[in-house]
């Protein structure tokens, strides 16, 4: 039996890429009128998924609770290279993937 990773199709792949890589837009606009600086706009914008934001240390809104298990999972979990399901990184490297059986050899205890 083969378990196939969900097919990476168009929009989904595009979104994943954009969100996982993050987008930074740094724009400045200056409007001068007869040599006099009339209006200046500076905009520094960043757009990314929670995971990337956490990894790259972006600011979250005030009041965000960082002690929930989901935050810990972001740092410790990794997707399996075959089926894409996430497991704890050490478990995946030492025991293999418990979902699809890739490289799976759990400790006989």
């Amino acid at each position: 039996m083969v378990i196939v990773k969900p097919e990476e199709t168009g929009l989904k792949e595009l979104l994943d890429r954009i969100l996982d890589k993050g987008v930074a837009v740094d724009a400045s606009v200056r409007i001068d009128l007869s040599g006099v600086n009339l209006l200046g706009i500076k905009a520094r914008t960043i757009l990314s998924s929670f995971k990337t934001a956490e990894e790259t240390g972006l600011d979250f809104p005030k009041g965000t609770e960082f002690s929930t298990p989901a935050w810990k999972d972001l740092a410790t979990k990794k997707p399996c290279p075959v089926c894409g399901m996430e497991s704890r990184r050490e478990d995946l490297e030492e025991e293999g993937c418990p979902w699809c059986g890739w490289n799976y050899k759990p400790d006989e205890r």
Partner: protein
Amino acid sequence: MKRKAVLGAAGTTNQMRDETMENTTLKPEKDYSGLADAIDRILDKGLVINADITIDVAGVELLGIKIRAALASFETAAKYGLEFPTGTNLETAAWKEAMIEKEECPQCGKRVEREELLNLACPWCGWESAKAKKRKRAKAGVKMEV
């Protein structure tokens, strides 16, 4: 009418063929091609939008805007401890449900409690993980020895 019936029959055989194919390759039914699925994905992963904007007129800073925004579904927001508007009652059953870690079944695509899916099987389609199978085999082995 007759023709419709024939078409219907052909549809069923196709469906059956699809089903058997699915059983051998285990592909999730869900494909993320539509807009709805794209929105699903963004809300599920969460989106951070941070922006610092300054506007100055004639060299004098007039307006500064600092945006720290996080966009996520209720479930994701609850999991990551985002703050909800004051007055939201977080003690309801739905919030507790949202805090339970869930995972999408690789076969049928339904969201199931992670522990159940990994250790037992998918309650919807019966899919079993490698861990669950291994455990089952080990159990059977113990029984045989006894």
